[in-house]
């Protein structure tokens, strides 16, 4: 049975971890992730969740503790943001290479300097190549649902990889929204007990995390690449299964009024919600505009994205981070690379918006669609555009 309640998104995520009966939560506080771990420690303190809450002394140790607990076969959760994610970076890489199915919520936030507690995607873009499954939620319900799903996918024996669920700091973490909260039975029916492929066990001793000499190292990287790419199948399968259990469907790439659209805008994260309003307004004016919401960031959904972009006259890609000195927008760069060499690739225009919590009002979307309209009419794509930049 599901109950409809109003909840702050962070609390909804923490409740989801509780419903999943996590065995261990190890985390270090950082704004805007704090409410998640505070609520989890409350659940543990009140005896509502039978788990160990490990109040570590840093994010580096948070991920290290998670590696240790997951290696014993314990269902393990952590959450972080920005500087915390950057600090744990070293161990984030190792967790996936060791195939430890940890679930981590990342409340996306800008990176220093200057220090900023507000939302953008610089933190997660710096973790692009860590070998985790990386997915984005756009609202409270999605954050709750994808957290439950993340355990299911991570622990799937075909995958056995850690999963990051991203959601935008403050914009989502601190907002109250109505959600449908499933009960424990429903979650249990969807999420079987964790049966690790391998675990530390005195009756069956194994050596985990050995030295990889040149004779073996490339094979381990290849295997990691293969398993993450191949996780795409289990991802769509388990999302479908989620839909069967809970009635809510999620896909690696989702679209909004995109079928006959000539102008497409690609977003990742909470901005998709505002973008949909602007699309509606433009549609009312008869413009053929649509939205593509990139939900799955790793493994990158090459084929699904190519299918939806095919036929557009121009594509705008929103980036919430800057690859400084490089291609500027990491998401746009990825999409361009993915389509390079295809029989036809629509022109791709890159917009950089909402850095460090700068508000992205509907006007900004209007501006972006205007610019895309000019390109559709034969204008030049030009350099990436920093929207709303003060002169």
């Amino acid at each position: 049975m599901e109950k409809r309640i109003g909840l702050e998104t962070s609390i909804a995520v923490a409740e989801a971890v509780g419903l999943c009966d996590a065995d261990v939560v190890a985390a270090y506080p950082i704004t805007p992730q704090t409410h998640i771990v505070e609520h989890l420690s409350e659940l543990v303190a009140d005896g509502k969740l039978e788990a160990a809450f490990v109040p570590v002394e840093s994010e580096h140790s948070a991920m290290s503790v998670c590696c240790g607990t997951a290696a014993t076969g314990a269902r393990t959760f952590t959450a972080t943001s920005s500087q915390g994610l950057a600090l744990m970076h070293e161990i984030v890489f190792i967790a996936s290479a060791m195939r430890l199915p940890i679930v981590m919520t990342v409340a996306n936030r800008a990176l220093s300097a200057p220090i900023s507690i507000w939302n953008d995607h610089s933190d997660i873009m710096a973790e692009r190549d860590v070998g985790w499954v990386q997915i984005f939620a756009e609202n409270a319900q999605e954050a709750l649902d994808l957290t439950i799903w993340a355990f299911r996918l991570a622990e799937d024996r075909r995958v056995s990889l850690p999963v990051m669920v991203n959601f935008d700091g403050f914009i989502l973490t601190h907002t109250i929204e109505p959600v449908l909260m499933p009960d424990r039975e429903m979650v249990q029916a969807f999420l079987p007990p964790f049966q690790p492929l391998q675990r530390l066990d005195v009756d069956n001793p194994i050596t985990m995390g050995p030295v990889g000499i040149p004779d073996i190292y490339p094979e381990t990287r290849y295997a990691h690449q293969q398993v993450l790419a191949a996780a795409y199948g289990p991802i769509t399968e388990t999302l479908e299964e989620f839909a069967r259990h809970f009635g809510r469907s999620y896909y690696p790439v989702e679209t909004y009024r995109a079928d006959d659209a000539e102008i497409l805008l690609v977003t990742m994260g909470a901005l998709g919600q505002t973008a949909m309003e602007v699309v509606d307004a433009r549609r009312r004016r008869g413009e053929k505009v649509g939205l593509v919401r990139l939900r799955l960031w790793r493994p990158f959904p090459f084929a699904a994205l190519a299918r939806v972009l095919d036929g557009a006259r121009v594509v705008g890609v929103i980036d919430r981070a800057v690859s400084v000195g490089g291609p500027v927008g990491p998401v746009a760069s990825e999409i361009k690379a993915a389509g390079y060499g295809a029989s036809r690739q629509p022109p791709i225009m890159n917009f950089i918006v909402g850095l460090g919590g700068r508000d992205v009002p509907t006007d900004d979307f209007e501006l972006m669609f205007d610019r895309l309209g000019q390109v559709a009419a034969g204008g030049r794509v030009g350099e990436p555009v920093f929207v709303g930049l003060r002169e």
Partner: protein
Amino acid sequence: MAARLQEGSNVFVSRLLPRDNWFVSGHRACQGCGEALAVRMIHQVLGRNTMVASATGCMEIISSSYPDTAWSIPWIHVAFENAAAVASGVETGLRMLMQKGKIPSRRITVVGMAGDGGTADIGLQALSGALERGHDMIYVCYDNEAYMNTGIQRSSSTPYGASTTTSPAGRQSIGQQTWKKNLPMIAAAHGVPYVATVNPSYPMDLVRKVERARSIRGPKYLHVYACCPTGWRLAPELAVAIGRLAVQTGVFPMYEIVDGVLRMTVQPEKLRPLKDYLKPQGRFRHLDDDTIARMEQRLHQEYQKLLRREGLQL
């Protein structure tokens, strides 16, 4: 006195330790490696119901070159500075899985192990966190007094005057210019139930301390004297002798701190001259008599300070 007598009778050592070996031969440690010797002995005492979280460093590199392993107990390596955190995780995971009936309940000894670099420098924060949180585990620091795995660079546990590749003796330098960080006392300051210094050249003492550490609940810290013939420029056949000289000269005092009370466990009647200890080691070869005298003076001060604290609540 009995203990001291037995310490002299090395002939019984091999019979003293349990036969089963969990850190087996075939690993790639150098000849005379004191770290490898101590690792083997400690795990002979701890036995099969033990899990190890190891830091990066010599002991990890020499024991786990895939697809080979020297470990016949569960062993995990994650990174350099986080052995204490990974061990915290292993302990927590096992505890919760047992509590929730997901694995059979039994006593498993969780060990975190690292070198002096992985403990005194880059891993100090993780160690402090783990000790403070009170995990039921034994943390073992194998102190060979430098970063040996990366080529004998100094650590904060390198003794004064030692020449290393980043504290080389030269015309303007006597080598390491700082006094060795006192790790066991830092561990003890966390108020943990058991801290001990351990030396594989004193196997009786080692066995007793490791057994004691295993029997106590909560965080335990063992600081192990681990000679490194390669890094110390010491003849490998002197590996055991140098450990005894370290104790006889007062360089490596042997004690344990149980619930905050310090007790010396091996105590020479009279300290031998420091020179006896320094002489066989190439890393100290450049030191002149004045410097050695200064070092010895400080050494004796420190030693006396320790003796005065015996029996006191620290």
